[in-house]
């Protein structure tokens, strides 16, 4: 077994522990490369099936190609897709691009709040009917208690502190200084009523590992990651007002791997194009404690 086999095997193991332990399981799909690898690993773990729904939090500021890609593969792979949104903040234009709030406040409202309330079922969920390919809305859905997330420890400081199974309080809050121990391959899978857990199968993967795996498995990813001839591409995907493309002429997965291994991005952090990380010395930590992914 090589290192990619080892990473894959551990992720699959975590998926199966999660599926065994939690009845109300959901997986977050941001459409980016990490959560798409996560989705692929779920299909590996369950022999081609994805036996739980996927949830996408749509901020309405996602780049259109992302939504098109999401709906195409949700239909092709027969995924149970749930879409959540902070309709009120978007409709009343309480967002950063409209100039009403800061970047971090916008993230808190459109992502953290929307996620929290869609997970709990308090806000309506739009659900894709895999047969007709159309969306329908469900109010007062059941809460999810296990949430599978594609966070990687190498992304930024606060994520390096996560467990494979990280408990969250009722309001999605994160008690960083009092996390459960994880011994060998035994994780915290017992939870008091009212708490829920974030599960991180990709915690040990690096950005380079992700691309190497995409190459090996031939996983389709959004075209935005590749240079379309303008000398620019996205290295990390988010909302268009806060995510800048990087200067790069990488047109293939192999060229991206080369850039990361020894080329121009070997020593530049992946999220350097994300503006919200820079607002405050520890912006992401503040967001994560209140439930941000």
């Amino acid at each position: 077994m090589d290192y990619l086999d080892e990473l894959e095997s551990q992720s699959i193991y975590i998926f199966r522990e999660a599926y065994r332990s939690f009845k109300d399981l959901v997986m977050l799909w941001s459409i980016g490369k990490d959560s798409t690898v996560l989705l692929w690993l779920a299909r590996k773990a369950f022999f081609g099936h994805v036996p739980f729904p996927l949830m996408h939090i749509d901020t309405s500021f996602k780049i259109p190609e992302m939504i098109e890609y999401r709906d195409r593969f949700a239909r092709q792979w027969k995924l149970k897709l749930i879409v959540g949104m902070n309709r009120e903040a978007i409709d009343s234009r309480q967002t950063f691009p409209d100039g009403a709030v800061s970047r971090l406040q916008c993230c808190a409202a459109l992502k953290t709040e929307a996620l929290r309330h869609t997970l709990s079922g308090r806000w309506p969920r739009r659900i894709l009917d895999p047969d007709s390919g159309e969306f329908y809305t469900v109010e007062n859905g059941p809460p999810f208690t296990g949430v599978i997330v594609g966070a990687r420890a190498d992304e930024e400081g606060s994520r390096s502190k996560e467990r494979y199974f990280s408990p969250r309080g009722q309001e999605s809050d994160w008690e960083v200084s009092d996390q459960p121990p994880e011994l060998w391959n035994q994780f915290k899978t017992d939870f008091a009523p009212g708490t829920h857990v974030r599960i991180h199968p990709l915690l040990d993967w690096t950005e380079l590992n992700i691309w190497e795996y995409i190459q090996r498995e031939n996983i389709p990813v959004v075209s935005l990651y590749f240079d379309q001839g303008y000398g620019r591409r996205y290295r990390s995907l988010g909302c268009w007002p806060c995510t800048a493309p990087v200067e790069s002429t990488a047109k293939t997965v192999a060229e991206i791997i080369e850039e990361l291994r020894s080329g121009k991005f070997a020593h530049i952090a992946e999220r350097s194009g994300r503006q919200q990380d820079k607002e405050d010395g520890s912006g992401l930590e503040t967001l994560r404690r209140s439930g941000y992914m």
Partner: protein
Amino acid sequence: MTASSTAGLLSGRNRQQMNIVVIGHVDHGKSTLIGRLLADTGSLPKGKLESVQAYCARNAKPFEYAFLLDALKEEQAQGITIDTARCFFKSSRREYIILDAPGHVEFLKNMISGAARAEAALLLIDAKEGIRENSRRHGYLLSLLGIRQIAVAVNKMDLADYRRDVFETIQKDYTAFLQQVKLQPRFFIPVSARFGDNLCTRSARMSWYDGPTVLEAMDRFEKEPAGREKPFRFPVQDVYKFTEEGDDRRIAAGRVETGTVRVGDEVVFLPSGKRSRIASIEGFNKPPQTEACAGQSTGFTLTEQVYIPPNQILCRADQPPARTGTCLKVNLFWMGRQPMVKGKRYKLKLAAARESVWLREIYTVLDATDLSTDSRSCQIERHDVAECLLETLRPVAFDRVSEIAQTGRFVIIDNYEIAGGGIILDAIAPEKDWLSEHVQRRQMYWQRSRIRPQNRSERYKQNAALVLLCGPNGVGKSEIAKTLEEQLFSAGRMVYYLGLDNSLLGVDSDLQTADERDEYIRRLGEIAHLFADAGLILITAISHLDDYELQAIRTLNQPYPCLVVAIGPHRLVHSRPDLHLDNPADVPEVIEKIKCLLAREHYLLEYHL
């Protein structure tokens, strides 16, 4: 990618990854060492060093390498590592994941979490402070966690004027300590993390030292062998059948912990003892396999469709099997807020098994900071290490840790939390199991009324008993039980039907998951005993009853009898049901047979004057 673009060893699929944990007493300089290692090997993202330096300047703090890791506000505020931060770095030999484990005793469970997933450890000792409480405790825990590759860095040599005698005294004392726990560090390295001495480059200030630098020592560690040559062990995590998605495969899923298995091999599920053969090795988006080996998460279909109970370990029939038993002699480390006590029910997680477990006996409690032992303790306090005897209600499959580590380790759950972890030293054949001992004690202290069982028998014209209906779901067991109750009641008998749901809603409302079935069984046994003591015939139905569960119920119901009526196919192998009915559809006939059995066995008394 061009061949010359990366160093040969790092390119392509031959690359290696290794987890290394950095541990030591609080303030002995772990974060500084890691921060400096990242900076000196050029592993930091561009701008990271500058931004942390700027942050320090802004807050009027002197820059320290440790701040590179302290990405969280809370950490910076307290100046100590709270959790295991992971950082990634590369040498010319391989990639490393460095786990920075906290040295403060309050965060010991975090240190354990970091160390438990490491393949090697770098242990720091402050040259000026010397060996401290956690230097010893961490050393001991490494041995418990099974980490054998250790380098000891004697840090802050700058504060000891780079003196050779200071280094050698610590080396001598600490080697002697580790010997007691059968650990032998491969390297002792004098270091000043702050100034970079002997970290990535050899120090001119300690020319008396001719061993490797920290970086060289790390590169000299070897990857643990995957365990292919050991007997095959496959804890079954789950059995999948995605029929609703048009997939009829029934797949036993899990990870091969050790050994190999091929299509066609005969296999045994333990502890159940069921046998079958591997029909296929399943996977998604990969070429068909005929062999699965250690480390792979995979799945098997079997030639015979045997029922696979949960919690099993799959072994090969031609190899030494895993052990099975209910009594385990273990070395256990306790992290719970509440001490571990005898008589309390905990949950054991061992390989894929989850079982109720009790602390039966404490042999010794060890103070890991000085290895002194206490054999009189009656409980295991937080941060104690104890050699003790655990007992499960049902048999579990396992190995001795000295033979197969992966199936010789476990954790203990107390009130939803992982409160303990340990290794299995041996299996014990106890003179008496925990439940029998409990029943003996219960009978001794039971407060008896003045009415004796014979008085009740005479009054009620019956002998008290538990009538247990078993068989698969959906054969109408509860309907039969209710009808039986009704008819016996009409005939003047003292009888009560206990529905499974009623018990779950009442005394068992604190039980949440299917994992806790054995606790439900235990409580059913105690409830049955109460009803029998009151002179009643209690009727209840339970699906998929197995030998161990029946044995537990029988034991707890003592001295009263238990009549087992199997309706349809059942799972009892060692014990025979008192009555086995293949055709449950004919309810009147079933009832008649049960009533005949009760009369024949003198539970229903008739008086002929």
